[in-house]
Structure formats: structure tokens, C-alpha cells
């Protein structure tokens, strides 16, 4: 699409010999070229192209009417039918888009938060909303496909103890045999008009949900990566432009704008001093000192993580042995099962604070490295805690308990609830009290900043638990949905009352990508591998659950394929399953092909980088050429003027020459 040149009406090109007529003629040529291009496009493309024209509304309207008249004059024999159909589709699409706006939950709240605190804090709330969508979707399909058939079929719930209040926290007792946990389902084939196989339903629902989550995460991650990382490479690294262009226009509150201005000023000064400092090289001994401090800090962090994991593991084993021996009606013993989740949450709360203390003694080359390293350490801590818990659940628990899947489900439930309670306390102490202290007792501390990274990592941790728990407790998303809703409102209130926006506003988009990547890589992949391991290799409990009696839950698929093999007409399904999906050679081939394609694409990228480099050099050279030609023109005109004034001395030809005229021409001429 040929770009219209930006000619503000006041530019003077007088003495180039271009009269107003010539300019108008050129303008008219441009417009008719544009109109004929537009007339050749399809309706939808034309509408989008006209919208993207950088002209005023009246001019766009004129161009549109001209384009439409050109088009109708060309195609007199219009296929009216298809035009009408496409037009009605377009109107339908527009009305769906408007309707969707009504469905956007929390639109006003989010706008208010964005207006006061800026886009980076808003991204936390948008992330929360996105996670909420995952959980609501999971809730709906689990409820429809697994829970409702089970409830309708009415299993016989044995040894129901009365409802005591403690169940809400621990998940045992009354909830033990309900559809909340794995144990409440049995894998019978419900005899109805098409027979409904509960085993297959359980397996396929959870598998389908996890696959959809994975696909959606990969899609968002790659879109975000392409938008925010790929384009960033290149000479635009120092970031003065980046800081200036990221001025947040959606902030409306006057005090917030003032704060943003101050922050931007400070950040600009910091980046200036950083550039000066980068030129200052450190001596060898200083470098060794900083390196050894780094190594020490890493050792300490990893040591803390390993220590906490070991503690949790041994506490878990201890709990397991004690829980095997207790009377099911003993309240205190039941309450003691809460000890493990409380310890886990305390570790999640305290160790990151220790990490931030450790990082004070280190010195980083740039503040971005500091944020990334702190995020890495926290992620390592949280994922290793989850890893050790999964190991404990998959190794020690199945041998020792009767209905071990329900036990795992209940453990996850307890972890989620206690984590939620600690989140509430954390907000109260971390933000409310800290605000009170910062404003009254120790004014030097100031109002607390809203720590986006810590809050997002907490959300990711909770979501990982929810994904792990889905196989063991199909209705766990209910709790997660309620929890996310409460956290949204609580954080919003706490934000308005207690916090100020973060001082370092840059790189919000990159942090978004990092968070989505973290949600995919250790979090979702870890949960998926744990569920996959359970389904593939572990023996399900013999007396409860939908897979009782089978060797592994995966055997239900195997027996189903055997059943299909005997049906007429579906032999190809079994053939694909047996010879393609279960054959290792297929996966080797696919991996090899993907590697080859990746190598080719990488080579293409390298070639393009080289091309960009040479093109930039060419632009510099052409700039020099223009300056040279301009000089020549100036000299020639000076000579002509001299000769003219020599000949016609009575004519006073003063030419107002704008030496910058060459820059008013667009680069793509």
C-alpha cells in the first residue's frame, strides 16, 4: 500500500521551482493512484485500508466514495448475491464484536486501575483474568462430562461422617467420598441409549482439557514472544526512545501523571549515567570480588531451596506414617494434616524475602539482570517445592494408602486453601501494615510499591497446583475460581488504598512474555508430566475411583482400542493407534524433520540480519549523497544568483531558501 506522504500544509518548497499548481497536480495523481488501488481490493480489505489512512475524516470519506464509484463503474455486472452475503457477514461480525464488549467483565474496574497505575500493573490483573478463563472452562467441561453423569447415576456413598466445619480446610471427612475427589467416581459403563463409559469420559475430558490448555499457552507465548522479543534486537538497546515512547497515555489521575513524570526523569538520568559507567572498566580484582559474591549468593539461594525441600519431604513422610495410625474421627489428628501446607506456605513467604536480602549484597551490570535473576531464584524455589511434593505423592503415598488418589487430591486442596489464606495475610501485612508504617512511623520507607513479579509468581504457583490437582479432584477448579475472584477484588482494594505504581516502568511487555513463558514451561509442562506419569505408569488404587482394577489408567484406552478393532468399519482407527502413535520410529522421524526445518529457518534469519545491516549502511550512504547534491545545488544557485544580480541589478531577487527542505521529503520517495 503506497503510503501517503506527510506534508503539513505549511511547508515551503517555494524556490525549488515547484509552483502550487505542480504540487496540486502531484497530489491529485497520488489520490487517483490510491483510489484505483483501493478499488481493486476486496470489500473487507478496502475498509481496513481506508481506516488505516492517516488523513482526516472528511478526506477518508471522500476517498471512500470515489473508490466505491470507481468499483461500481468497473463491475456493472456485479454478482449481487455474493456481495450481499459478504456484507451481511461483515455486519454480523461487527455486531458480534459489539456484543462481546458487553460480555467483557470488569471493563470499568480495569480501566480505572490502568488509569491510576499504568499498564504494567494492569497486566497483572489481565493475567489474573486470563487464568480465570482457564479455570472456568475446565470447571464447565469437568462438570458436564464427568460430574453430572456420576451424580445422576447416584453411586452409593459409604461411611459418610457428619459435616463438621473442618472439612472446608482439610477436605477429608464429609468430602471424602463425594464427587469432589477422585474416589467419588466409579468407572462403570452407564447403561443408556449410547452407553456412556465413565472411564473413557474421565480420561478423555482431562486429556482434552490439558491439551487445549497447552495449545492455547503455546499460541499466546509465541505471539507474545514475536511481538516483544524478536523486534527488540538491534541498535535500539540503550532505550532513551523506548522510555519516551512508552509514556502511558491511558493514565488519567493527575497525581499519577506527576509521579510518572518524576519517575521518567529519574529513569532517564539513570540510563544516562549507566551509559557513562559502561565505559568505565573494572579492574581484575574487583571483578573477581563481584564474581565470588555472585557465586556465594547463588550457593546460598540453592542451599535454602534444597534445605526447604528436604524439610518438606521428611515432614511429609512423618505425616504419612502418623496419618495411617489415627482414628478417622479424631479432630486433632485431622487438623495436624494442615501442618504440611502451613509449612509450605511459610517457606513460600519467607524464603523470597531472604532472597531479596541476599541480592542486596550483589552488584549487577544492569537492573534488568537483577529482576531476571530474582525471578529465576524464586521460580527455582517454588518449582522444586512442587517437584518434591509430586515425588512424595507419586512414590511414597501409593504404596501406603488405600485410596491414594483421593489423598493426593485432598493434599492439593489443603495446599490451595492455606495458600489462599496466606495470600490474604500477606496482603494485609505486606501492603496495609507496610503502608501504615511507611507513612506514619518511618516516613523514609515511603508507600510500598506494587510488586508485580512476586504477585504474578504467586498466581503461577497456585495455577500449577490447580493443574496438578485436576486429575485427582475434578471439581478443584471451583475453588480456584472462587479464590481468583476474591483475590481480584482484594488486590484492587489494597492497590487503591495502599500502594503506589512501580517506579521502573519500562519493559512491561517483555515481562509479560516472560510470565507467560513461565506459566508454560515449568508450570504447565511440570503438571502435565506429573499427570502423564500417573496415567501411564502408576497402578490405580484397587477399591476406589474410576480406574479400579486396571493395571494402569492407560489400559482403559488399550482395551477400548481392542473393542474398536472388532467393530466393522473402524479398523483404520486401531491401525493408526497401534502402528503410528505407539510406534517410536514415528516420533524420531517427526523430531528429525522439525530439527531440519529449524536449522533452515535459523539460516534464513541470519541472512536477513546481514541484509538489514547492509541496508542501513546504504541509507547512510544515500544520506551523504543527498547532502552532497544539496551542496551542489546551493552552489549552482549561488552562482546563478550572482550572474543574475550582475545582469539585472534593479531586480531584487531574494530567495528564501530552507536548507532543510530535503528532510521534508519522505524517505521512500
Amino acid at each position: 500500500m503506497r503510503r501517503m506522504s506527510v506534508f503539513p500544509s505549511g511547508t515551503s518548497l517555494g524556490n525549488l521551482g515547484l509552483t502550487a499548481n505542480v504540487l496540486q497536480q502531484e497530489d491529485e495523481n497520488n489520490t487517483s493512484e490510491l483510489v484505483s488501488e483501493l478499488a481493486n481490493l476486496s470489500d473487507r480489505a478496502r475498509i481496513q485500508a481506508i481506516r488505516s489512512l492517516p488523513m482526516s475524516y472528511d478526506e477518508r470519506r471522500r476517498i471512500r466514495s470515489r473508490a466505491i464509484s470507481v468499483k461500481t463503474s468497473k463491475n456493472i455486472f456485479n454478482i449481487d448475491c455474493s456481495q450481499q452475503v459478504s456484507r451481511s457477514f461483515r455486519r454480523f461480525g461487527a455486531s458480534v464484536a459489539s456484543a462481546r464488549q458487553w460480555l467483557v467483565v470488569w471493563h470499568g474496574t480495569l480501566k480505572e486501575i490502568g488509569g491510576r497505575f499504568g499498564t504494567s500493573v494492569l497486566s497483572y490483573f489481565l493475567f489474573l483474568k486470563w487464568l480465570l478463563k482457564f479455570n472456568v472452562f475446565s470447571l464447565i467441561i469437568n462438570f458436564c462430562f464427568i460430574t453430572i453423569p456420576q451424580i445422576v447415576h447416584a453411586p452409593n456413598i459409604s461411611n459418610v461422617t457428619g459435616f463438621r466445619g473442618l472439612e472446608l480446610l482439610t477436605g477429608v471427612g464429609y468430602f471424602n467420598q463425594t464427587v469432589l475427589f477422585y474416589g467419588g467416581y466409579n468407572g462403570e459403563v452407564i447403561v443408556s441409549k449410547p452407553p456412556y463409559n465413565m472411564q473413557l469420559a474421565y480420561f478423555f475430558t482431562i486429556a482434552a482439557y490439558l491439551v487445549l490448555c497447552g495449545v492455547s499457552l503455546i499460541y499466546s507465548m509465541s505471539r507474545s514472544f514475536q511481538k516483544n522479543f524478536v523486534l527488540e534486537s538491534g541498535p535500539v538497546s540503550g532505550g532513551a526512545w523506548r522510555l519516551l515512547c512508552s509514556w502511558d497515555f491511558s493514565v488519567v489521575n493527575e497525581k499519577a501523571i506527576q509521579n510518572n513524570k518524576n519517575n521518567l526523569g529519574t529513569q532517564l538520568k539513570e540510563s544516562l549515567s549507566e551509559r557513562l559507567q559502561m565505559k568505565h572498566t573494572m579492574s581484575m580484582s574487583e571483578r573477581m570480588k563481584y564474581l565470588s559474591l555472585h557465586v556465594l549468593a547463588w550457593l546460598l539461594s540453592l542451599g535454602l531451596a534444597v534445605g526447604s525441600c528436604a524439610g518438606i519431604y521428611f515432614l511429609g513422610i512423618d505425616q504419612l506414617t502418623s496419618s495411617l495410625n489415627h482414628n478417622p474421627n479424631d479432630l486433632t489428628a485431622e487438623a495436624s494434616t494442615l501442618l504440611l501446607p502451613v509449612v509450605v506456605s511459610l517457606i513460600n513467604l519467607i524464603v523470597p524475602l531472604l532472597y531479596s536480602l541476599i541480592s542486596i549484597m550483589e552488584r549487577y551490570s544492569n537492573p534488568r539482570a537483577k529482576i531476571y535473576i530474582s525471578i529465576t531464584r524464586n521460580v527455582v524455589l517454588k518449582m522444586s517445592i512442587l517437584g518434591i511434593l509430586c515425588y512424595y505423592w507419586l512414590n511414597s503415598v501409593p504404596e501406603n494408602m488405600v485410596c491414594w488418589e483421593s489423598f493426593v487430591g485432598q493434599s492439593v486442596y489443603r495446599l490451595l486453601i492455606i495458600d489462599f489464606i496466606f495470600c490474604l495475610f500477606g496482603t494485609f501485612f505486606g501492603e496495609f501494615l507496610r503502608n501504615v508504617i511507611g507513612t506514619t512511623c518511618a516516613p523514609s520507607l515511603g508507600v510500598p510499591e506494587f510488586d508485580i513479579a512476586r504477585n504474578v509468581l504467586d498466581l503461577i504457583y497456585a495455577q500449577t497446583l490447580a493443574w496438578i490437582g485436576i486429575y485427582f479432584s475434578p471439581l478443584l477448579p471451583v475453588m480456584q475460581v472462587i479464590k481468583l475472584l476474591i483475590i481480584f477484588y482484594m488486590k484492587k482494594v489494597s492497590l487503591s488504598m495502599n500502594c503506589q505504581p512501580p517506579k521502573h516502568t519500562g519493559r512491561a511487555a517483555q515481562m509479560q512474555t516472560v510470565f507467560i513463558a513461565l506459566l508454560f514451561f515449568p508450570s504447565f509442562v511440570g503438571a502435565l508430566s506429573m499427570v502423564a506419569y500417573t496415567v501411564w505408569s502408576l497402578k490405580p488404587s484397587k477399591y476406589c475411583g474410576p480406574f479400579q482394577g486396571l493395571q494402569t489408567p492407560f489400559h482403559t484406552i488399550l482395551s477400548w482400542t481392542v473393542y474398536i478393532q472388532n467393530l466393522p468399519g473402524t479398523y483404520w482407527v486401531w491401525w493408526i493407534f497401534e502402528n503410528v502413535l505407539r510406534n517410536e520410529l514415528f516420533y524420531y522421524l517427526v523430531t528429525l524433520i522439525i530439527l531440519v526445518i529449524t536449522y533452515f529457518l535459523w539460516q534464513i534469519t541470519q541472512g536477513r540480519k546481514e541484509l538489514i545491516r547492509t541496508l542501513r549502511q546504504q541509507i547512510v550512504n544515500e544520506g551523504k549523497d543527498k547532502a552532497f547534491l544539496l551542496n551542489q545545488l546551493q552552489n549552482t544557485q549561488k552562482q546563478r544568483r550572482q550572474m543574475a544580480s550582475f545582469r539585472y541589478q534593479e531586480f531584487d531577487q531574494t530567495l528564501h531558501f530552507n536548507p532543510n527542505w530535503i528532510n521534508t521529503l519522505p524517505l521512500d520517495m
Partner: protein
Amino acid sequence: MGGTASNLPKELLSEYQELTFLTKQEINEAHKKFCQLQARENGPNERVSMQNILTLPELKSNPFRERVCHVFSTSDRKDGSLSFEDFLDLLSAFSDSATLEIKSHYAFRIFDFDDDGTLDSEDLKKLVNCLTGETDDARLTLEEMRQLIGNILEESDIDKDGTVNLSEFQHVISRSPDFVSSFKIVL
């Protein structure tokens, strides 16, 4: 159009929707606000003066409020007054679905304080002053300003002529992924 917030006729509404990036709901909302602003004008006027436009909460404290009005105004008197179509143009350029090209084009014109089609060091100086604070420790000294402008030109002036023209600006913008999400005003 009188002072009452009447609904827009359907034909006009679909024309507005086709020519801007706004949805029907946003256009109606804009029309309501515009009629409210018109009611404050002294006489019956199709254009709303800059003074009244700047009473909108979304523009009241914006550091570029006057530039925005001047850029989007199609008035012959160059006084920054906006008609309803200009107002829609403004909202469309700042909306969620506007393309990067449109946003960068208008951002360039807003930052071009002397309207000469390029961003020279004077424009850049005014831009930085607009965006930094007024307190003493946030304001940049002359030396820092000179250094900063030098850094900016080094980053973005590809043909090394001392100014940033539209193409160079758009090139720099395409590498700042935060720009699209920050260049937004929602009613």
C-alpha cells in the same frame, strides 16, 4: 445537532463505524460526551473549542493535550477546535484496534512541536521537558539534555542528517513493543 444527546441515525452510525476503528458502542458514547461538551459552548456551534475539549477527564492532565487538539483539528482558524468527526478521529487513533502505522503517524505529528515534518533537537528537547517532572531532582540539566538528545539521535537517525523524520520514527517505534499498549485513550 442541539444540546440534547440524541441518538445518531443508523446510516451515519454505520458510516462512522466503517471509517474509524471504533465500535458502535464507543461511537455512541463519544457522541454523548461530545453533546455534553457542546452544551457548554457559548453559541450553537458545530465545533467545540479547545478549552472545552480539555475539560474531558481523559485529556485534562495529559502533558500533550494541546498538541493533540491541534493535530486532530481540521479547523481553518488553527485554534485546535474539534468537530465531531475530528473527535472520532482522535478516539479512533487512540483506540485499541488502531494499527501501529496510524498510531506512530499521529504520535510523530504530536511530538513535532513546530510542525515542520521532522523532529529536530528543539522538538526533542521540548518532548523531554514535557515528559519529565518539574521537581528539581527530576528535571534534566543542560549537559544531561545534550547527552540525551545525542543518544536519541544516535539511536534513531539512520541517514545521519541530525533530525528524525517519519520513517525513522516509525522504525524506532516498531521496535518498542510497549508503544502500542501505552498509546491508548479510552472513554
